C-alpha cells in the first residue's frame, strides 16, 4: 500500500469490490458514513481557507442519495489527507457510533451484529473493514449460505456454536419486544421452543447447530430478501 493517493484508492476500491458483495458506490458511501466524523477534524485543520468545505460532512449522511457526492468528497479528501485516510481505514470505530446509524438503530439485534462482525481483541469496536464485511453480508448479492452462517452467529447469544433453549428464548424476546406486556407468557414460550426444537433439531440433542439451522433456513424463500440492510 503506497504510492499516490488516487492510485491507492483505486486499487483498494477494486480489492474491496472483489472480496465483498458490494458495489463501488456502496463502499464509498460507507467510507463516508463510518469515517466522516474522524475526518471532519483533520479536514477543518488542513483546509482552513478552502471553499470546498463550506458544507459540513455531517450533513452528507444517509438522508439523501449521495453516491456521486460521496465519491467527489472522497476524492477531494484523498490527495491531502492520504495519511489520515490510511490510518482511518485501520481505526477502530466504537460501537456507539455504529449503533447510532439509522440502518441499525431500530434493529433489536444491533448489539449482536456489531459483536459478531468485530475483529478487535476486546470485541467492542468495529474497524472500517469489519463494517464493509457487515454491509457485504447484508447486501443484495450475498449468497444465502453466507447470510445463514452469519445469521446463526448473530442468534447465538452465548457464542457457544449452538442454539440452545436459552438462546432461543432470548431470540423470541428480541422478536416480540422486551417489555413486560409484549413478551410471551412462560407457558407459551416453553411450548414455542418445544415446537421449534421438534421441527428443526434433527439429531435430537436439544440444540440447533449450524447445519440444522441452514436446513431450516433453506425451506424459507423469504430469508434472503429479509436479511438485508441497504445503506
Amino acid at each position: 500500500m503506497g504510492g499516490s493517493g488516487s492510485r491507492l484508492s483505486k486499487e483498494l476500491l477494486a480489492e474491496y469490490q472483489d472480496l465483498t458483495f458490494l458495489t463501488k458506490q456502496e463502499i464509498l458511501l460507507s467510507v463516508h458514513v463510518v469515517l466522516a466524523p474522524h475526518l471532519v477534524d483533520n479536514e477543518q485543520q488542513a483546509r482552513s481557507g478552502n471553499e470546498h468545505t463550506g458544507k459540513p460532512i455531517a450533513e452528507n449522511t444517509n438522508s439523501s442519495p449521495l453516491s456521486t457526492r460521496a465519491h467527489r468528497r472522497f476524492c477531494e479528501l484523498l490527495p491531502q489527507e492520504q495519511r489520515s485516510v490510511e490510518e482511518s481505514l485501520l481505526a477502530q470505530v466504537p460501537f456507539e457510533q455504529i449503533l447510532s446509524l439509522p440502518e441499525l438503530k431500530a434493529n433489536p439485534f444491533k448489539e449482536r451484529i456489531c459483536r459478531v462482525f468485530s475483529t478487535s481483541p476486546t470485541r467492542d469496536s468495529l474497524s472500517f473493514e469489519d463494517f464493509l464485511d457487515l454491509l457485504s453480508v447484508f447486501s443484495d448479492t450475498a449468497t444465502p449460505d453466507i447470510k445463514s452462517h452469519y445469521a446463526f452467529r448473530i442468534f447465538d447469544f452465548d457464542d457457544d456454536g449452538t442454539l440452545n433453549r436459552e438462546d432461543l428464548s432470548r431470540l423470541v424476546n428480541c422478536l416480540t419486544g422486551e417489555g413486560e406486556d409484549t413478551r410471551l407468557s412462560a407457558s407459551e414460550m416453553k411450548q414455542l421452543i418445544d415446537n421449534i426444537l421438534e421441527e428443526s433439531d434433527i439429531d435430537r440433542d436439544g440444540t440447533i447447530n449450524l447445519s440444522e439451522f441452514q436446513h431450516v433456513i433453506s425451506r424459507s424463500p423469504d430469508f434472503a430478501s429479509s436479511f438485508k440492510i441497504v445503506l
Partner: protein
Amino acid sequence: MAQPLAFILDVPETPGDQSQEPSPYDESEVHDSFHQLIQEQSQWVAQEGLELQQREQEATGSGQQTLRRPEDTQSTATLRILASMPSRTIGRSRGAIISQYYSRTVQLRRRSSRPLLGNFVLSARPTLRLYDLELDPTAREEEEKQSLLVKELQSLAVAQRDHMLRGMPLSLAEKRSLREKSRTPMGKWRGQRGGGGLCSCCGRLRYACVLALHSLGLALLSGLQALTPWRYALKRIGGQFGSSVLSYFLFLKTLLAFNALLLLLLVAFIMGPQVAFPPTLPGPAPVCTGLELLTGTGCFTHTVMFYGHYSNATLNQPCGSPLDGSQCTPRAGGLPYNMPLAYLYTVGAGFFITCITLVYSMAHSFGESYRVGSTSGIHAITIFCSWDYKVTQKRASRLQQDNIRTRLKELLAEWQLRQSPRSVCGRLRQAAALGLAWLLCLGTALGCAVAVHVFSEFLIQSPEAAGQEAALLVLPLVVGLLNLGAPYLCRVLAALEPHDSPVLEVYVAICRNLILKLAILGTLCYHWLGRRVAVLQGQCWEEIISEKKLKRRRKPEFDIARNVLELIYGQTLTWLGVLFSPLLPAVQIIKLLLVFYIKKEGEDKIFLINKLHSIYERKEREERSRVGTTEETAAPPALLTEERDD
C-alpha cells in the same frame, strides 16, 4: 510403517454432545477426519521417505534402496489419489475443505477461552457438526494449514479464486491477506514461461485484458444499479413500512415497464405512420368542451386516440388525386405501409412479448421461492426468517414486533387446536358456516352483474339518455359504486367465518374479489359488444367501446391486497382496451405515476400522523407518571426534534 496410526475422530466435545454416539448423519464427519488422516499420513510418509533416504544413503545395500523407494513413493501417491477419490470428497466442495482448515487456524490464533464457531458448510450436506478445538496450538501447524489453503487457492483461476474468497465467511482482513499470499503465482508463472519472450508478452497482455474487462464489468454493474429509477424512494418506503408495502410499489414499477414497452411498439408502428399520413375527416371537426377528459368522446373521436379514425387501407406517399377510402395509385419508388397488417402484427407482437416475459418471470420467481417442505416447520421458520432487517424506523420496528407476536400466538393457538381434534359436530358446523359465506359472496357477485345488466338495458331503451354525453357517465358510476361496496361485504363475511389458516383466508378473499370483478366485467363486455352494437348504427363500434374504457378511473385507497388487485384490474382493462385504442397504455402510465406519488405522499402523511400520535401518547404517559411533582415535561419542540432523529 512402524508408527501406530493416530486416528483422530473429531467428535465434538461440547457438553451436550458427550452422550451421543456417532449416527449415520456423522458420515461426512468420518470423511472429514479420514481426509485429514490421509493428508497427515501423506505428509508424514513424505517426511519419512526423506528420512529413510537419508538413512539409506549412510547404510549399505543398494538393493534395499531400490526396494524401498518405489514402495514409499507408491504409498504416498496412492494415499494422495485415495484422498481425492469421490468417495472421500463427494458432496463437498473444495471450499469446504479449505474453509474448514482455515477456520481452525483462525481460532488457534485467536486463542479465545470460549470455543468459537468452528465449521461452516459450503456443501449441500446439512448434517456436518461443529468441530471443537482440541488441537495443539503450535505455530508450525498453523503455518502448514495456511500454506495448504493458499496452495489450494493458487491452483484456481483468478476469477474463481475471488469468487471463492468472497463466499468465505472470514473477515475482510484475513481475506485480503490470503489474496496477497495467493497472488504470487503470477510471478512464478511468468518465470516458468520465461523462455519465450513472445509468450510472456502474450501472458501480460492477456492479464491486462482480463483486468480491464473485470473493471469494465464492475463499472457497468454499479452504473446499472445507479440508473434504477426511484431507488432512494423505494428504500425509504421499505425502511418505513417494511417489505410488504415495498412489494406493492415494486409491482407498480413492473406494470409501468410493461405499459412503456407496449406504448413504444404502438407509437412506433401504428401511431407514427398514421400521424405522418393523416386521412381526411368526413365532416367539420367538433368543438372541444371540457367534458372530453372524462368521457373520452366529442372532439377526441376523430383523433389518433381511437382506431376508428385510422385508415384501413395501405398508406403511401401523398397521392395526386385526393380520394377517400379507395386506393391511391402509388408513385414510383413509394413504400406501401399496410395499416391493417401493421395493427395485427404490432398488437400481436406486443401481447406475445408481454406474455413471454410474464411467464418467464413467474417461472423464475417460482423456482426461487418454492421450497420443498415449506409448510412444515412453520414455528422455526417464523422465528428465524420473519424479521425484516430493512426496517429503519423505531415505530415500524415496533409494528413488526407486534405483528410477529400476534403471528406467534396464532400459530400456537392453531397448534393447540390441531392437537385436540374437533368433533364431528364442530366440523359440520364449520363446513356449514363456510358454505353459507361462499353462497352469500357468490350471490353478491351475481346480484351485481344482474344490476349492471338491468341498468345498461334501461340506458339503451330510454331514447333521451342515449343522446346526451353526460348520461354516458352514469353507468360507470354505478359500476364503480358496486366495485366499492361489494368487497366490503365479502370482507365482513370473511371475518365471521372460521378458518384454520390465515393463508387460506387470504386466498379465499382474493378468489371472491376476482369472481366479483369478473362477473361485473363480463356483464359489461357482453353489454357493449353484444347489445349496444346491435342497437346503434352508423358509429364505429370500436370507438364506443374504447370511450367506455377511458371512463373507468377512480381513486383507490390503501390496503395491500386490495390495492394489488386494483392494479391488476386496471392493467387488465388496459390490455383489453389496447385492441381498440392505441393511446391507452399512455393513459395507464400517467395513472400509475400518479398512483405512485399519491400513495407515497399518503403513506408519508399516515406515517407523520402516527408519529405525532406516538409523541402525544408518550407525553401523556410521562405526564401521568409525574403526577404529584411540579416538574414539567420536555417542551414539545424538543420532543419533536428528538423524534425526528429516529
